[in-house]
C-alpha cells in the first residue's frame, strides 16, 4: 500500500486554482483584444503534473496519482502556411490595386466616354471634327474669316493636347512623390520589424514569448507584403550558453524570372539587422566588365603591406575589372577613356530614370554592420610548440632569524621583524614566498610554491633570447646568513629547458592573414599554438553590401508604381529591353501614354505643316519659277511634274546633284504661294517645329499673326502672276491688301487637309524615340490613334480589374481562414470563460473538501472516549 502525503491534495487544488485563474486571464485578454488589429488568439498551455520518479523498489500497490495541473506557458494559435498565402496574395493585391489606381487616374484624364457635347461626343474627337468642319468651310470658300475660324479651331485642339500633356505630367510627378513616400513607409516598416526583432530576441533570452510583439511584427510584415512580395523565414539562433532564440529573416521572394539574377532574393531584415531601401536620384555608372574574382584579387593585392597606393607600378597591377564603378570626370560624366573605382563618391552618376530601388547594408539599431562569422579549427601535424624555460629553487632551510636580522634580496636589504615577521622568517615556505614577492626579472615570472621558488620564462623559447626566449638562466639573487638561510644544494633543483616555437611553415596558408573572396566575404586565417600542437583557425566573415535591384526583382505596390512610372511600351529603347527589363516593351505606364500623345501631336503637326508648305505649279501640274515659267532640271528637257512625279532622267539628275526635289526647287527659286508656312510650332512665339510634343504644340507665331494662312491651293493658273487677272491696261488687279489677287480659289490643298483628318497614318515610335524597340505603334487616323490609346488603357484596366477582384477575393478568403485559426471568437471565449470559471470553483471546492477531510483526521479522529 502506498503512502499518501497529507497535504499533497492541497497542492493539487492550489495548482488547479492557479491554472484556472490563468485560463480566465488568457480568456479575458482574448476578449479584450477581439478588436485589436493583428491580434492572435492566445491559449493556455497546461500539463498534468507528476512528481517523483520511478523507483525500482516501489511497492506494486503504490498507485501514483498526479499532482495537479501546471501552466507551462501561453501560446498563439497561428498557421504559418496561411501567413505565407496571405502575404503572397497581399503583394498581388497590392500590385494590381496600385496598377488599377494608376490606370483609373489615367482614365480620368484620357477617357472621353460620356464627355463633351451631345452626351458624349468627346473632347479631342469633337475638336478634330470641328477642325475638319472649319477646313471644309475653307474648301467651300477660302476667305480670311474662314482661315481665322480654322485657326481658332486648331488653337482649341492644341490646347487640348497641352492640357492632356500637362495632366499626364502632373500625374507622373504625383507618382514620383508617391513612390518616394512609399519608400519612406517601407523603411519605417523595416525599421519597426528590426526593432521588434530585437525586442522579441531580448524577451526570448529572458524566457518571455513576447506574444503581443509578435502580433505587431506580423502586422508589420503583412503591411510590408502589400508593398513588395517577401519571403519570411524563422530560424533558431544560438546565442551561447545553450540558449537559442528565434530569428526572423525577411527577404525578397525571388520574383525575377531571370535565373541569373540574384538580387531578387536580397535580405531586408535578418534578426536584429535591417536594411533600408532607397530611391536615389542618381545611380553610379557600373563597370560593365565587373568581375567579382578580379575584385577579390584587387582587395587582396591592396591588403598586402608591400602595396604602395602611390606607386604607379603597384596600381598598374590592379585589374580594372575588379572595380564596380566608372570614375567621373570633373562634370560628373564617365571618364573617357574609362577609369574605375570602388568608391561610390568618385563614380560617375546617371539619372535614375528607371526608378531603380536600392537596398542598403544590413545594420543593427546602433548602426553596426551585419557580419556572419563562421569559425573552423584545424589541428596541424606540423610545427613545434614553444616551451617556456622553468627553473625551480628550493629553500632548504630558514631558521634562527631574530629581530633586526637583515636579508638582501635582489640587492635590497630587508629587516626581519619589520619587513617579515620573525615567525614567518623562520618558516621555509613563508620565506620562499617573501623572497619570490621581492624578486623581479625581465625574462621570468617569479612565484613561490611551498618551499620552492620557481622562475618561469615569460615567453617560450630556448634560453639565449634568439627567438623570444629568456636571455639567460635565472639567478636566485639572495644574500643571507648561511646559517639561517640555505638553498638546496643542487639548485636550481629542477630545470625545464625552454624550447623555441616553430610554426607549421609547411601549411600552404601559413602565415595566414585576411583574404577577400569573390562573394564579398573575407577569410581570416590565424595559426594558434595549442597545448597539443598548432591549430589553424579559419574565420569566414560574410558581409552585406548595397544592392541595386534589377527591374523585375520586386512584385507588389512598389513595383506597380515603378511600372506606372517607367512603362513606355513600344517606346522603350532596345537598350532598355536588352539591359534593364526584358518586359519593357509590353509594360505601358504613364510614359507610354505621354509618348503616344507626343507622337500623335507630332504626327498631326508634321502632316499639316507639310501640307501647308510647298511650291507652286501651273494648271498642268508643273513647277514654276517666280516669273511663272515652267522649271526644268538642268540638262533634262521637260517640265517637272508634281502630278506625275519625276521622270527617271530627272531623278537621276537630282541624284547626281545629291539634292532632293524640295531642295532643288528652293535653290532654283521655285515659286511659293502667298501665306505659305508652318501652322504649328513648338512654342507660340516662334515657328520652330523641332521636337514638337503634346506639351508644347502651339499655333505658330506666323499663323497667329496672319503672316501665314492655310494655303488652299498650290496651283497658279497659267503660270503667270497674277495670271490672267489683268485689268484693261494689262496691270494686275489688286486686292484689298494691295497684293495681286490670286486667279483661282481652287481648293485642292485644303481638300488634302480635310482628307488628312481621316487618313490612315503609320505611327512609328522611332520618330519620337530613336532607339525605340517598337516599329509600329498603330496605323490609322488621328481619331483612331487616340481611340487606340484609350482601348489599350481600357483593356489593361479591364484585365487588371478582373485580376484584382480575383486576388482580392482570394485575399479575403485567406484572411478569413487566418481569422478562423487566429481570430478571437466570442462564443469560444464564452465557453472558455465558463470552463475556467467552473474549474476554478471546482478547485476551490476541492480545497474545502480536503480541508474538511483533514479536519476530520486531525481534530476528530482518535477522540473516542475523550
Amino acid at each position, binding site marked *: 500500500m502506498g503512502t499518501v502525503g497529507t497535504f499533497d491534495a492541497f497542492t493539487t487544488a492550489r495548482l488547479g486554482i492557479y491554472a484556472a485563474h490563468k485560463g480566465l486571464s488568457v480568456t479575458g485578454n482574448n476578449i479584450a483584444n477581439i478588436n485589436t488589429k493583428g491580434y492572435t488568439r492566445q491559449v493556455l498551455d497546461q500539463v498534468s503534473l507528476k512528481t517523483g520518479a520511478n523507483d525500482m523498489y516501489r511497492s506494486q500497490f503504490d498507485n501514483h496519482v498526479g499532482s495537479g495541473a501546471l501552466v507551462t506557458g501561453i501560446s498563439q494559435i497561428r498557421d504559418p502556411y496561411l501567413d505565407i498565402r496571405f502575404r503572397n496574395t497581399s503583394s498581388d493585391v497590392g500590385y494590381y490595386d496600385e496598377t488599377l489606381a494608376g490606370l483609373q487616374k489615367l482614365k480620368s484624364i484620357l477617357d472621353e466616354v460620356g464627355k463633351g457635347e451631345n452626351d458624349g461626343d468627346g473632347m479631342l474627337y469633337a475638336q478634330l471634327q470641328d477642325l475638319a468642319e472649319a477646313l*471644309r468651310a475653307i474648301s467651300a470658300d477660302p476667305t480670311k474669316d474662314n482661315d481665322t475660324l480654322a485657326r481658332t479651331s486648331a488653337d482649341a485642339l492644341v490646347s487640348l493636347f497641352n492640357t492632356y500633356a500637362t495632366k499626364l505630367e502632373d500625374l507622373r510627378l504625383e507618382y514620383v512623390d508617391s513612390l518616394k513616400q512609399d519608400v519612406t513607409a517601407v523603411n519605417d516598416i523595416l525599421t519597426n520589424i528590426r526593432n521588434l526583432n530585437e525586442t522579441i530576441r531580448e524577451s526570448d533570452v529572458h524566457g518571455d514569448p513576447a506574444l503581443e510583439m509578435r502580433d505587431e511584427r506580423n502586422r508589420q510584415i503583412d503591411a510590408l507584403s502589400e508593398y513588395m512580395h517577401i519571403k519570411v523565414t524563422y530560424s533558431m539562433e544560438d546565442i551561447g550558453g545553450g540558449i537559442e532564440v528565434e530569428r526572423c529573416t525577411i527577404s525578397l521572394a525571388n520574383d525575377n524570372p531571370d535565373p541569373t539574377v540574384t538580387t531578387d532574393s536580397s535580405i531586408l531584415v535578418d534578426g536584429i539587422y535591417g536594411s533600408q531601401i532607397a530611391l536615389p536620384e542618381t545611380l553610379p555608372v557600373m563597370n560593365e566588365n565587373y568581375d567579382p574574382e578580379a575584385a577579390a584579387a584587387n582587395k587582396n593585392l591592396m591588403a598586402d603591406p608591400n602595396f604602395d597606393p602611390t606607386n604607379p607600378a603597384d596600381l598598374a597591377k590592379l585589374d580594372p575589372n575588379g572595380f564596380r564603378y566608372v570614375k567621373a570626370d570633373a562634370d560628373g560624366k564617365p571618364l573617357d577613356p574609362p577609369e574605375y573605382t570602388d568608391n561610390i563618391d568618385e563614380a560617375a552618376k546617371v539619372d535614375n530614370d528607371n526608378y531603380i530601388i536600392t537596398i542598403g547594408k544590413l545594420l543593427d539599431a546602433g548602426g553596426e554592420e551585419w557580419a556572419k562569422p563562421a569559425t573552423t579549427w584545424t589541428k596541424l601535424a606540423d610545427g613545434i610548440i614553444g616551451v617556456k624555460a622553468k627553473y625551480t629553487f628550493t629553500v632548504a632551510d630558514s631558521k634562527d632569524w631574530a629581530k633586526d636580522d637583515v636579508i638582501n634580496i635582489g640587492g635590497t636589504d630587508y629587516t626581519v621583524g619589520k619587513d617579515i615577521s620573525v615567525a614567518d622568517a623562520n618558516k621555509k615556505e613563508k620565506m620562499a614566498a617573501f623572497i619570490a614577492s621581492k624578486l623581479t626579472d625581465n625574462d621570468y615570472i617569479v612565484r613561490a610554491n611551498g618551499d620552492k621558488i620557481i622562475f618561469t620564462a615569460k615567453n617560450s623559447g630556448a634560453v639565449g633570447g634568439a627567438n623570444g626566449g629568456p636571455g639567460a638562466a635565472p639567478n636566485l639573487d639572495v644574500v643571507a646568513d648561511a646559517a639561517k638561510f640555505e638553498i638546496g644544494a643542487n639548485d636550481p633543483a629542477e630545470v625545464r629547458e625552454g624550447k623555441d616555437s616553430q610554426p607549421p611553415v609547411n601549411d600552404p596558408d601559413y602565415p595566414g592573414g585576411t583574404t577577400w573572396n569573390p562573394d564579398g566575404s573575407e577569410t581570416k586565417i590565424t595559426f594558434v599554438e595549442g597545448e597539443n600542437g598548432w591549430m589553424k583557425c579559419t574565420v569566414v566573415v560574410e558581409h552585406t553590401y548595397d544592392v541595386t535591384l534589377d527591374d523585375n526583382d520586386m512584385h507588389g505596390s512598389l513595383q506597380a508604381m515603378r511600372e506606372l512610372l517607367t512603362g513606355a511600351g513600344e517606346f522603350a529603347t532596345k537598350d532598355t529591353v536588352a539591359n534593364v527589363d526584358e518586359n519593357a516593351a509590353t509594360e505601358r505606364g504613364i510614359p507610354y501614354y505621354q509618348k503616344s500623345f507626343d507622337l500623335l501631336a507630332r504626327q498631326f503637326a508634321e502632316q499639316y505643316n507639310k501640307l501647308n508648305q510647298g511650291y507652286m505649279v501651273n494648271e498642268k501640274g508643273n513647277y514654276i519659277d517666280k516669273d511663272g515659267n515652267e522649271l526644268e532640271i538642268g540638262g533634262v528637257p521637260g517640265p517637272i511634274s508634281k502630278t506625275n512625279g519625276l521622270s527617271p532622267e530627272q531623278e537621276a539628275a537630282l541624284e547626281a546633284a545629291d539634292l532632293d526635289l524640295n531642295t532643288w526647287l528652293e535653290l532654283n527659286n521655285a515659286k511659293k504661294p502667298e501665306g505659305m508656312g508652318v501652322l504649328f510650332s513648338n512654342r507660340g512665339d516662334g515657328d520652330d517645329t523641332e521636337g514638337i510634343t503634346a506639351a508644347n504644340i502651339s499655333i505658330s507665331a506666323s499663323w497667329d499673326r496672319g503672316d501665314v494662312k492655310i494655303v488652299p491651293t498650290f496651283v497658279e493658273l497659267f503660270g503667270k502672276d497674277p495670271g490672267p*487677272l489683268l485689268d484693261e491696261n494689262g496691270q494686275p488687279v489688286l486686292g484689298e491688301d494691295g497684293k495681286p489677287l490670286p486667279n483661282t480659289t481652287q481648293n485642292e490643298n485644303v481638300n488634302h487637309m480635310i482628307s488628312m483628318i481621316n487618313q490612315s497614318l503609320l505611327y512609328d515610335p522611332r520618330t519620337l524615340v530613336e532607339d525605340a524597340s517598337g516599329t509600329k505603334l498603330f496605323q490609322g487616323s488621328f481619331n483612331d490613334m487616340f481611340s487606340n490609346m484609350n482601348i489599350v488603357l481600357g483593356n489593361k484596366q479591364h484585365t487588371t480589374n478582373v485580376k484584382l477582384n480575383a486576388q482580392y477575393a482570394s485575399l479575403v478568403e485567406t484572411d478569413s481562414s487566418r481569422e478562423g485559426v487566429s*481570430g478571437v471568437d466570442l462564443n469560444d471565449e464564452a465557453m472558455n470563460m465558463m470552463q475556467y470559471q467552473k474549474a476554478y470553483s471546482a478547485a476551490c471546492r476541492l480545497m474545502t473538501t480536503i480541508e474538511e477531510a483533514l479536519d476530520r483526521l486531525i481534530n476528530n479522529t482518535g477522540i473516542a472516549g475523550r
Partner: protein
Amino acid sequence: MIRATTGGVLKSYRSNLMNSFITLNKARDTVLSQRVFNSYAEDPAAAAKAFKLRKSRMSVESQHSICNDAYRKYQTAWSCLDSVDKLIDTDNGKALSTLKGTTLKMLNDPTGDAREQLAEALDQMSETIVQTLNQKYGDNFIFAGADGHNVPFEVRQVDGKNKLFYRGVDVDAAVPETMKMADPADPTKQIDIKLNAAGEIDPAGTSYLSADAQLVKVPKPAMNGGAEIRLNADGHVDPAGTTVLMEGYTTITKADYDALVQVDPTAPETKVLKDGADGTTPYMVKDKDGNDAYIIIEDNFKTMTDDEIQAVEDSALKNADGTLYTTTDADGNECYIVASDDNIISEAKYEKACSDAEKLEYLANEKYFVDIGLGFQENNKGNLIESSGFNASLIGLNFVGYGKDGDGDPKNIYSIVQKMKDIAGKIKEGEKWSDSDYNEFNGLVKKLEGASSEFKTAYTNMDASTTKLKNNLSLLEENFYNLQEQYADIEDADMVESITSFIWAQYCYNAALKVGNNILSESLMDYLN
C-alpha cells in the same frame, strides 16, 4: 476544422457588403447616366465603335452644311440661268422681247426703220446676260468656276468693239486657222507656212499665214508655136501686142467653123480670134487632137495685159530667194498666195491666241471639289478620287459658249449678238440690208440658235446636278438620324433593365445591411448568467 470567428465573419461581411454597395453604385450610375458604359474599360470595343459612329455623325453634320450651301448655290444658279433662258428665246410668249425674237424682227424689217433701236435692244439683252452670269451666292461668284472671288465675266472695249472676257481671257479666243504647206523634210506632213520679217515665205520665219489668205491662180499665157498669143489693141493676134491670151480658151475645128459659117454666120461660135495681119482671117491653132482650129471669143476667152500679170506677180507671196511661191487650190490649180496684213499673224499674236484658247479649254473644264459626304478620299498619289467628292464649280463659259466655229464666227452668245449688232450698225437707218449683210446676219441668227441650244443642254445638266445635291441632302439627313440611332443602340441603357437591376441591387444591399444587424446581435456571451 475551420472556425468561424467573430472577426472572420465580420471581415467577410464587410467585404461582401462592400461588393454589394459597389454593385448598387454601378446600377445607380447606369440609371443616372442612362449609359451602358461610362468608360472604355467597361467595354473597349463598344466605346471605340460608338466614337467612330459619333465621328461619322459629326462629319455628316458638317457635310450636310456644305451640301446645303452647294444646293443653295445651285438653286440660285438655276434661277439665274432660267432668266437667261427666258431672255434668249422662251419668255412666256413674249418672243419679241427675247434675243431670238429681236433678231427675227430685224430680219423681217427690210426697211430698217427700227433697226437702230433693235440693235440697241440686242446690246442691252446681251449685257443683261453677262450681268446675270456675274451673280453672287454669298460672297462668291456663282459662275466663276474655281475662282469665286473675282468677277468672272467682264466686257472690255477692244479696238472700239465690246469684247467679253471670262476670268481675263477673251471668250472668242481660238487657235488661229493657218495655211499649211508640205514639210520639205517629210512631204507627207503638213506644216504651218511661216513668213519672215520681209514678208517672204521662209521656214525660219516667225509669222503665220491665216487660212483665209487669198489664193490667186497663177496667170498662164496661151502658147501657139512656142510663142505667147498676144493681141493688139484691136483684139487681133499680134506678136507686138501688149495683151496676152490666157490658157483655158475654147476652140472650134476649122471644119466645124467652116460648116457653121455656111449655116449661120452670126452664131456665137463663129466669133473667133482673128489674125492681126489682116484683122479678118481667123487665127489658126491646133486643138488637143491636133486638128486645125480657131479660138472662140466667149466666156473662157481671158486675156491679161502685161501690167496686169505683173501686178498679180507683184502681190503674190515670194519665197526667200525671190521666186514666187505657188500652191494649189481645192481644184488642183496652181495658185499664188496673196495676203493682206490681216492675213499675217505675228508669232506673239499667234501664241497669245493659242495660249488663250488653251486657257479657255482649261477654264471650261475646271473642277472644284467639296466634301458632301461621298467619301472624299485621296488615292495613293495624294490626288482626290473624283467620284468621292462633288465638283461644285459652275463655269459660266460652258453655258454661254466660247471659242470660234469652223467659219471663224464666235460661239459665245454675247459675241454673236455683238457681231449682229455691228452688222446692223453698219447700215444706215432706213436703208435696206445688202444681200451679203443680210446673209451674214441671217447666218449669225442660226448660230445664235445653235448657241442657245448648247445653253439649254448645259442648263439641263446643271439641273441634274441640283437634283443630285438635293437627294444627297436627304441622304445625309437620313444618315444623321441613322448614326444617332446606331450609337444610341450601343451607348444608351435599356431603362427597364437598368431600373430593374438598380432595384434588385438596392434590395440586395438592404438585405446585406439587415444580415449585418443580425451578425452583430448575439453570441453565447448574451446567454451567460
